[in-house]
């Protein structure tokens, strides 16, 4: 009950926020933040119950026949992620309301932000794969709105669309993967999946399901080769980056991998793919971040790298690796959220986020300098910040990796070395060093802008300093939920003098040396990038997208040429061919020509109809066409009367009169017939028409002579008087048995009438 209600409240708030923000002004962020804060407290209070692997579930039936429900599943992993989503979300709302206070459309922005929060929270507590998919797509859509916030800039639109297309494509693949996963179980409930974890792994659908699910996870978590949307998404305002691109949206893919680890993980395919893609992404992200100068782009590439690290660790799957993945996840969310918010603050206060144009900010904003440096210390993995724990575990897991141990170790060493280098650069080059000429004198950011970063840094310090007391219990439930066989490790800050500590020390040293020779290093990186990474992925994607549009346009104009006649001709010819096939296979028609049942008066009427139809076709006079129309209508009326269709006949008479009047009224305004088609076209059309006519004739004979089944009408005949108190069965069907159909029908004619009314009355003269 609580989880469902909470998400519903978040969604409600998302729609209320745009309406109320302008009245609440500066208080809006604080007030809105109360809701995620309440959720945070609630989920943290569940922690003691959940630590041994208990689960809280909620189910609301949706399509139970297919095993699809709105269900929620709260375990240790959900709580860890909820804490990140709601915890950082709380600060972000406070931060964003202040940060955006000069921007237009900020009310709507708050709404999108909260909607995104609801969707993200939905993912992490989903108890059904389909429910998860729904929230998954909702994050893609709401992040599209957020990334494209500056929609008047083309760059912004391109980036937003790129992110949407890539994550949308991944989402589609994910849905396919989920459906395949659900097949062996006949259910999409996580609890069902977890009760028999080997069923999918041993099935033949495992590999395709795995590939599709990984496509979903990799696109969302910006793994190579889908990584480029994340740096592109830096066009979004800083609150968006701080929330979506540090702790939430991009972590959704990682969450998915962790969530499915018990049922999908542990196989060779899993191991190979995650290690390969994660490892490559980790190194590549780190490498590409070196030569960036835009503060947010640097952070984006390190995020790509960090996501690669997590995927790699999950792929490793050992006890140490899973522990390291979860701890690093937490570490990263805390320092990256802080850093993005601080990047936004710096941009706001100085007007730039190009680090070559920054420097000496310590004198203007000492508090900010302290907070950001503390976060960078965590990123560099220096004690006593939580980052140190993460790095230690990472090295430890690599030392115990089952395969390619030294390659992984080297990759991790390189990545961490770059992180140290960047930490030094972002701290020393931005806050100390030469002070350039600023457009306006920078000053300390406002209180709401610093609150979130400050608290996050403090939390990181506390968790890091007291690992056994705080970080341990906090993550244990998540680790148990992720890999039930491997219990959580006891976390310690001090491990004694061992290989891992040596590696940590070497990393710091190497990073410091690199920083000492930063100009040479950056030049070197740029040279290599120019040579090997000159082609930007996002440009390539953009080109492919455009080429595709050009191709589809060409294709469409070929098939959809715009001449209605040829569309219709295609339909008629194909339909006739299909009818022909059916008739060919059916029993031959038993036709008895019995002249006794052909009353002469009726035959005359039929002859009249035929004459009228043919004259409407050949005549050059519009009046004759109109008369023919009337003759046919009344002829059909007579057929209805002759064969017991009384109501039909009455309706037909009235409709026919009205139709002729209408046609006459319109025809009055139209020009005379002109000859448009040449004889060849007429012959061709005549042939098509003749073919269709003959087939329809044969069809009638076939249908009129065969009785397939007892008509459903027997029921109507039986019940018409006894239950519906009506003797006119046709009318009873219309107003009682099939009344809903009739309701639909009068709605249609009402719509047609409104359409006519607006075509005539509401057109600009």
């Amino acid at each position, binding site marked *: 009950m609580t989880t469902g209600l909470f998400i519903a409240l978040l969604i409600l708030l998302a729609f209320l926020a745009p309406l109320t923000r302008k009245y609440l002004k500066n208080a809006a962020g604080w007030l809105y933040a109360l809701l995620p804060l309440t959720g945070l407290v609630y989920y943290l209070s569940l922690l003691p119950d959940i630590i041994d692997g208990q689960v809280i579930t909620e189910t609301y039936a949706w399509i139970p026949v297919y095993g699809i429900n709105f269900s929620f599943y709260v375990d240790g992993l959900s709580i860890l992620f909820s804490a990140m989503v709601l915890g950082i979300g709380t600060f972000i709302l406070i931060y964003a309301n202040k940060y955006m206070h000069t921007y237009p459309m900020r009310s709507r922005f708050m709404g999108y932000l909260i909607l995104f929060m609801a969707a993200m929270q939905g993912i992490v507590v989903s108890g059904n794969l389909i429910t998860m998919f729904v929230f998954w797509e909702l994050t893609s859509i709401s992040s599209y709105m957020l990334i494209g916030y500056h929609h008047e800039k083309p760059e912004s639109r391109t980036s937003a669309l790129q992110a949407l297309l890539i994550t949308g494509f991944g989402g589609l693949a994910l849905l396919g993967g989920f459906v395949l996963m659900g097949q062996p179980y006949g259910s999409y409930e996580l609890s069902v999946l977890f009760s028999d974890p080997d069923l999918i792994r041993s099935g033949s659908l495992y590999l395709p399901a795995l590939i599709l699910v990984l496509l979903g996870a990799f696109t969302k978590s910006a793994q190579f080769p889908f990584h480029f949307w994340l740096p592109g998404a830096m066009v979004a305002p800083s609150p968006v980056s701080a929330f979506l691109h540090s702790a939430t949206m991009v972590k959704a893919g990682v969450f998915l991998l962790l969530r499915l680890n018990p049922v999908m993980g542990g196989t060779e395919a899993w191991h190979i793919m995650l290690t390969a893609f994660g490892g490559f992404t980790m190194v590549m992200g780190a490498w590409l971040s070196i030569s960036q100068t835009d503060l947010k782009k640097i952070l984006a590439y390190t995020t790509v790298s960090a996501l690669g690290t997590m995927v790699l660790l999950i792929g490793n799957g050992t006890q140490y690796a899973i522990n390291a993945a979860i701890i690093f996840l937490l570490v990263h969310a805390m320092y990256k959220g802080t850093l993005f918010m601080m990047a936004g603050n710096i941009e706001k206060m100085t007007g730039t986020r190009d680090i070559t144009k920054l420097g000496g900010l310590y004198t203007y904003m000492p508090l900010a300098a302290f907070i950001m440096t503390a976060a960078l210390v965590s990123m560099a993995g220096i004690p006593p910040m939580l980052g140190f724990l993460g790095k230690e575990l990472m090295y430890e897991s690599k030392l115990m990796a089952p395969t390619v141990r030294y390659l992984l170790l080297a990759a991790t060493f390189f990545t961490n070395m770059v992180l140290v280098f960047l930490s030094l650069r972002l701290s020393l080059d931005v806050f100390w060093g030469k002070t350039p000429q600023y457009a306006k004198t920078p000053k300390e950011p406002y209180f709401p802008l610093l609150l979130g970063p400050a608290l996050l840094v403090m939390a990181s310090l506390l968790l890091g300093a007291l690992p056994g007391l705080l970080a341990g219990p906090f993550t244990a439930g998540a680790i148990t939920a992720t890999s039930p066989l491997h219990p959580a490790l006891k976390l310690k800050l001090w491990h004694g003098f061992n290989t891992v500590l040596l590696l940590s020390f070497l990393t710091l040293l190497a990073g410091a040396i690199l920083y000492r020779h930063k100009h040479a290093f950056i030049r070197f990186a740029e040279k290599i990038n120019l040579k090997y990474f000159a082609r930007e992925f996002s440009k390539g994607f953009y080109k492919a997208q455009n080429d595709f549009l050009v191709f589809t346009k060409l294709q469409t104009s070929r098939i959809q040429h*715009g*001449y209605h*006649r040829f569309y219709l*001709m295609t339909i008629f010819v194909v339909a006739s061919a299909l009818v022909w096939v059916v008739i060919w296979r059916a029993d031959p028609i038993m*036709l008895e*020509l019995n002249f006794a*049942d*052909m009353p002469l008066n009726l035959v005359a009427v039929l002859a009249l109809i035929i004459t009228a*139809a043919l004259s*409407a*076709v050949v005549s050059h006079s*519009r009046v004759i*066409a109109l008369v023919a129309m009337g003759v046919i209508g009344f002829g059909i009326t007579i*057929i209805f009367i*002759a*064969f*017991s*269709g*009384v109501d*039909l006949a009455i*309706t*037909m008479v009235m*409709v026919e009169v009205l*139709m002729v009047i209408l*046609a006459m009224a*319109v*025809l009055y*305004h*139209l020009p005379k*017939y*002109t000859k*448009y*088609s040449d004889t060849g076209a007429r012959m061709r*059309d005549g042939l*098509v028409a003749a073919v*269709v*006519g003959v087939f*329809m*004739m044969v*069809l*009638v*004979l076939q*249908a*009129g*002579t065969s009785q397939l089944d007892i*008509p*459903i*009408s*027997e029921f109507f005949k039986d019940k*018409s008087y006894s239950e519906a108190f009506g*003797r006119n*069965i*046709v009318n009873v*069907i*219309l107003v009682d048995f099939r009344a809903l*159909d009739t309701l639909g*029908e009068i709605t*249609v004619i009402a719509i*047609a009438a409104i359409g*006519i009314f607006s075509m005539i009355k509401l057109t600009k003269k």
Partner: protein
Amino acid sequence: MLFLLAVVIGVLYGSAVYLLLRRNIFKLVLGLIFLGHATNLLLFVASGLTSGYPAFLRNIAGETEMMADPLPQALILTAIVIGLGVTAFALVLVYRFYSVTKTVDLDELSENE
């Protein structure tokens, strides 16, 4: 009788198709009307021909065996009225089409986009 009705339906369909393939937009609508008539008749005939026994209950023994099938009739009745709505819409559309483009030739529409 069935055979003759089949011929009528065939001719109606043939004329409708021929008219639908014309370039004059008014003939197109005319074809649409014919197509509607032909289909109503097709449904009516396909459900079996019953002379002189409409689907009204009169408390006569065995009457349900003899009477016409009411369901197709109900179907056709709705179809006739919807047909009126659609035809009216199409006719007004033709009228608006002409008053905007000053032509009744559909090909000119495709060429001018």
